């Protein structure tokens, strides 16, 4: 028990040190605005990937509609900050809450579907959300929502990301998480072990949607404008790619996946004509050499270096 | 007829078969017994070409077939009834049997063998148009065997044909195996039901965690104290 706590505290300290270093580099302009913006994006993408991982990786429900929940959080968030002048944190929370409610309402009926059928249904839901937003003039329709304050600062994204990661980590290491994993492994056996599979599927879906909504809120307050075309099914694919690339069922993997995808894309920005080709090749080659993703099911904390900090047993 | 020499098989890092050698002569029933996970199925799957041995040779009628693709091994005259029957559940009984004769082109020969299979398993003839998945366990086992016979093999590999079957059916299946053998097909039989297997086999090998530990005449092995204690429950 102490060992678990010790591991958490060490991770937390390391994270804060990392934050301090990055904050210093940004303040001193050693990291320029472009890379600063990309660090923001990495943090948002980590939130998106980790929350999608809860649904796809841990609970085994093939969802392709994550961008839709992100959009809900983003739009609800900006309506609150721009039209109602509410504080940023309130906008983020209500945005996440709205996405969560939607996730719950949608999840209840659709999670009866399995595998590819669920995938196409969630993809469709994401698209429906986007098309509806595109036709609401109140939020700017196809032109997008303009004049959003640049509220997302580094401490905001970083610490919300950190909170998300700890939340999901603690969730999956509890009876709730184990029940979700049981659903992924074998639904029939899970039911026979007393796991209410519907409840846990909906729970994972809702929590995933909440964090996607919060991620959307952070994203929306980065760029002064948001537009429905940022939330297409291609964006959902992108989050899925991060999750699978990192390893389904590994939080460390989601972090790595979000990091790799965002930075590969940013680093190739100067070669637009080859950017997508290179990206495609990276995807294909990574799947060849690590079909289970960079981290598979393992976490960095279970690797050798971390074992030293552990007090004897796992 | 079949000669395996010092064969090693791996599943990734798992060393499943550790230097196995065995021999089957024409016209014999040879049985391979051993505990769960000893490597019996692995041996059959390697002979059939579904797995590739890392080292070692498998000679069939003088030709090395180790590492050949599965479809060529079928053409060479070896056919397998896989563990758990594995009939094509959504196809009819007839289609399953036709697939058994997939490699053959002689229409007349196929028709003749089909008649032979129906004589041996009249139950299948009654149900030619039924979907295979809806057959009972015993019927599926008959279908799997009939299907294997349709390629007119000289060597038939049987992986636990009695698994999950009612006592009545087990007896039926074993007597059919003897019939097939009498009609000229050599048989390699893998069984958990060691008592039954030893009672119909000529010779036997005992497999233990990937190694052959005992081999010899089936009757003698059945009588040996060691085998009785470990595998026959007595």
């Amino acid at each position: 028990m102490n060992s678990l706590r010790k591991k958490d505290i060490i991770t937390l300290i390391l994270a804060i040190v990392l934050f301090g270093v990055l904050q210093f580099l940004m303040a001193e302009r050693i990291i320029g605005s472009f890379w600063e913006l990309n660090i923001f994006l990495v943090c948002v993408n980590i939130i998106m990937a980790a929350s999608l991982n809860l649904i796809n990786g841990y609970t085994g429900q093939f969802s392709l509609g994550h961008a839709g929940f992100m959009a809900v959080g983003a739009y609800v968030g900006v309506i609150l900050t721009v039209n109602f002048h509410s504080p940023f944190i309130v906008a983020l929370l209500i945005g996440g809450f709205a996405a969560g409610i939607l996730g719950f309402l949608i999840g209840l009926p659709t999670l009866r579907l399995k595998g590819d059928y669920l995938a196409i249904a969630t993809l469709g839901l994401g698209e429906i959300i986007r098309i509806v937003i595109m036709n609401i003039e109140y939020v700017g329709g196809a032109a997008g929502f303009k004049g959003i304050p640049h509220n997302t600062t580094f401490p905001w994204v970083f610490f919300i990301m950190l909170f998300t990661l700890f939340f999901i980590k603690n969730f999956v290491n509890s009876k709730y998480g184990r029940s979700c994993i049981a659903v992924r492994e074998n639904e029939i056996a899970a039911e026979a072990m007393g796991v209410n599979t519907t409840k846990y599927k909906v729970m994972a879906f809702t929590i995933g949607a909440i964090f996607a909504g919060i991620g959307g809120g952070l994203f929306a307050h980065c760029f002064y404008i948001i537009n429905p075309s940022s939330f297409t099914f291609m964006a959902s694919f992108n989050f899925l790619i991060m999750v699978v690339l990192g390893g389904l069922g590994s939080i460390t993997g989601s972090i790595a996946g979000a990091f790799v995808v965002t930075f590969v894309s940013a680093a190739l920005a100067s070669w637009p004509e080859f950017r997508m080709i290179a990206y495609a090749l990276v995807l294909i080659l990574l799947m060849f050499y690590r079909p289970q993703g960079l981290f598979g099911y393992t976490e960095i904390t279970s690797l050798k270096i971390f074992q030293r900090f552990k007090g004897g047993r796992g | 007829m079949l000669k395996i020499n010092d064969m090693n098989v791996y599943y990734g890092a798992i060393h499943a078969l550790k230097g196995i050698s065995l021999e089957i002569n024409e016209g014999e029933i040879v049985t391979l017994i051993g505990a769960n996970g000893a490597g019996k199925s692995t041996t059959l799957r390697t002979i059939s070409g579904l797995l590739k041995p890392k080292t070692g040779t498998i000679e069939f009628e003088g030709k090395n077939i180790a590492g050949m693709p599965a479809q060529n091994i079928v053409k060479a005259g070896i056919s397998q009834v896989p563990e758990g029957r594995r009939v094509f559940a959504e196809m009819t009984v007839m289609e399953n049997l036709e697939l058994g004769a997939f490699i053959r082109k002689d229409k007349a020969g196929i028709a003749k063998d089909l008649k032979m299979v129906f004589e041996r398993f009249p139950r299948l003839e009654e149900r030619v148009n039924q979907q295979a998945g809806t057959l009972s366990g015993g019927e599926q086992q008959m279908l799997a065997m009939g299907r294997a016979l349709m390629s007119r093999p000289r060597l038939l590999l049987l992986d636990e044909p009695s698994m999950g079957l009612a006592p009545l059916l087990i007896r039926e299946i074993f007597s059919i195996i003897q019939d097939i053998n009498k009609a000229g097909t050599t048989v390699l039989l893998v069984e958990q039901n060691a008592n039954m297997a030893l009672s119909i086999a000529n010779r036997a090998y005992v497999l233990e965690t990937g190694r052959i530990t005992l081999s010899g005449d089936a009757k003698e092995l059945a009588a040996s104290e060691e085998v009785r204690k470990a595998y026959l429950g007595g």
Partner: protein
Amino acid sequence: MELLKTDGVSKVFGGLKAVSNFDIEINEGELIGLIGPNGAGKTTAFNLLTGVYQPTTGTIDFAGKSLVGLKPYQITSRGIARTFQNIRLFSELTVLDNVKIAYDSHAKYSLVESVLRLGRYFKEEDEITKKSLELLKIFKLEDKAYEVAKNLPYGAQRRLEIARALATKPKLLLLDEPAAGMNPQETQELMEMIRWIRKEFGLSILLIEHDMSLVMGICERIYVLEYGCIIASGTPEEIQKNPEVIKAYLGGEV
């Protein structure tokens, strides 16, 4: 005392009557066998008792309450646990986690407590782990606790499935062909274990098996199913002599 009683239970798939008039009774502490030809409907009967399928007609009462209409997880919490004909472990998880999941339904800590690691979280988690390890020890699996379940040998997987079922704290345990794929020696060890579990955990057991040495060796009473109907029931001796059973199932002289 009567634990389980079914009355007029039937199940129809499309046009196929897989089970009809399935009437059985199990008392507390009994060890009962269910046998019958392939496709007779034995596994379907288990699925009806555990809520995987809902009966087309009939009633199922367990410990005085009806089970009809309940979901599998609800039936598990009422006290019926099972194993599966084709093993269904959580194959990518460790042996320990397999058992922990079964214990989880008895843990009380809340979502907030687990996410913030407060209050009962550590205490109950430690207790679950401790109990799971104890159970694994009974089944000689404690040294494999941190191995991934799919890497266990077949026999060990069967044992783990039983251990996992017991972790749900059942009053009635249903075993579907526990000896399938075991050789006679392994089967004998299994028989010992089943007897011991019944005594140690004080529960009733209903098992399906084609291996007559096991069924006749440990069951106190046996039901015989053919074409979905119970055609005979009685002690092993009675069943072995029953001509109908011999004709339908056992074949020849036994």
